[in-house]
């Protein structure tokens, strides 16, 4: 299964694995405390002791990038998990029940489609106040209809296949058929869909943190680092903004490439 990802897919997996390891082991690997200011190192360039230099408060940029990977990637991970679980449950319920239940769920999804993701997240932030909780809840709800639409149409196709009727005739319950048979068959599609959505979630969450409405300082976060690095960039020290920005782009390229491989494998199997 692994080998079918191709060289691009494998490279993407390897890169994401490295970032996952570095961010989880950040306390062991980071050369400095990410939150400790050191005015002698403020806006300093790259030196032997501070490989990427320091930010406006003299905090070590490399250490902040390592710790920042945690918030930058954990938020999107929770967002995708929530939207996938709720979206899949709604989609399978709609596809299985049909009729009025399907109609109600589909109309609900239509309404959610009418609000752009970032705008929805901003509304929840307005209610709950700036911070990760509001952003994650808002984006989960905003991403949910996209999951549900894809899964629902696949589940409708799957539901009409003979094996479902056979299981039904054997007296299996609807829940058992959906859980044991339908869901495993839809899994490749759901995985491909959520990997691609993960890329978008990273961009959206980082953007909201950049606006100052997501992760709050002094926490390290790549989106926030691009924002706070803007001042340094104006004074000719763009290292903080550029390194955080480049990391976001690299991770999203890897995630999208992986999503494309998974998606095309899925398409090829059909």
């Amino acid at each position, binding site marked *: 299964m692994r080998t079918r990802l191709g060289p691009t897919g494998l490279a993407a997996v390897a890169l994401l694995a490295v970032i996952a390891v570095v961010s989880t082991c950040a306390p062991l690997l980071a050369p400095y405390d990410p939150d400790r200011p050191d005015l002698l190192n403020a806006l300093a360039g790259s030196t032997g002791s501070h490989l990427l230099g320091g930010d406006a408060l003299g905090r070590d940029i490399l250490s902040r990038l390592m710790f920042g990977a945690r918030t930058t990637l954990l938020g999107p991970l929770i967002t995708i998990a929530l939207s996938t679980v709720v979206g899949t449950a709604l989609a399978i319920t709609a596809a299985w029940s049909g009729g009025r239940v399907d109609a109600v769920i589909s109309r609900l999804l239509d309404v959610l489609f*009418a609000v*752009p993701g970032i705008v929805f997240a901003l*509304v929840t932030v307005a209610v709950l106040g700036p911070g990760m909780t509001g952003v994650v809840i808002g984006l989960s709800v905003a991403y949910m209809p996209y999951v549900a639409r894809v899964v629902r149409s696949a589940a409708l196709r799957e539901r009409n296949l003979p094996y479902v009727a056979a299981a039904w005739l054997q007296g299996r319950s609807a829940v058992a058929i959906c859980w044991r048979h339908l869901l495993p068959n839809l899994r490749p599609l759901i995985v491909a869909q959520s990997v691609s959505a993960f890329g978008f979630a990273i961009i959206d969450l980082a953007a909201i943190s*950049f606006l100052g409405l997501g992760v709050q300082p002094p926490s390290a976060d790549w989106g926030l680092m691009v924002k706070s690095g*803007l001042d340094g960039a104006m004074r000719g020290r763009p290292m903080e903004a550029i390194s955080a920005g480049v990391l976001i782009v690299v991770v999203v390229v890897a995630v999208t*490439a992986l999503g494309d491989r998974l998606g095309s494998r899925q398409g090829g199997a059909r």
Partner: protein
Amino acid sequence: MRWPIFLARRLAALAAVLLVASFLVYGLLYTVPGGPMSFLLGNRSGTPEQIAAIRHQYHLDQPFLVRYFSWLGDALHGDFGQSLVYRQDVSDLMSTRLTTTGLLVLYATGIIVVAGVALGLLGALRRGPVDTVVSAVNSVFLATPPFVVGVVLVVVFALGLGWFPVFGPGTGFGDRLYHLTLPAIALSLGSVGFLARITRASVGEELGREHVETARSRGLPESHIVRRHVLRNASIPVVTVTGLTVAGLIAGSVVVENIFALDGLGSLLVRAILQRDFAVVQGVVLVLVTAFVIVNLVVDLCYSLIDPRLSPGEAA
């Protein structure tokens, strides 16, 4: 399905969706911890008389549904209430900023159509190394969030080379466009990558069709074949995707305006959220959602118009 019936049904659906969405936007803000009084009073603690006066002024002594419908009715007439912070009509605050956001989105759309189609054609018509490079560039464009592009543009062009002004909206039409150039590029880059991908796939598919083979075997010049036989057929998905992208730009403008300190709807919204100015939040979100839904509907209608094989209603 006939056109008038189709149109009427789509418009009714649009109205229903907007009604529910407006209810969500209005209602959600009343679920704020502490209730509406907490943000109306701010950090002050009012006397009972003051609290009663505020309650009356904002109609909080009336049932929720009554308040919602009177807000919606006023909003339909262009009255979104008063800003708590600016002490100004929300509609006045929005109307001055609507032009900036509108211009930005239009400018970005222009860039997306020209650059996206050009890159896509380049990839589809020149296979080999050119195609590989273009595809790689597209992937990077797609993966780069507008705010990162924005920061890079500010550093390189505005500060390094000094070609473009960094901040502010400018005065007069020409100067405004000049000021909007960097923001429009930041807003459009991701969509350029997306549209280029779609164009490349669509043109590539048409190139392999039998009618193209036939035209080629009849000895027609390649440029004629590309123009008359390939591009026309390939344009349908391209137009659809362009439309959907424009709808997406409406949300993206929120982020971009904040980088370049443009006084548009997006920066108004972000400031209003930070200041807990809820009348403004409700107004701006309602306007953004309405624009988003209308653009989507127009795209859907165009889709049925362009492709005569699709009768209206089967477009979805």
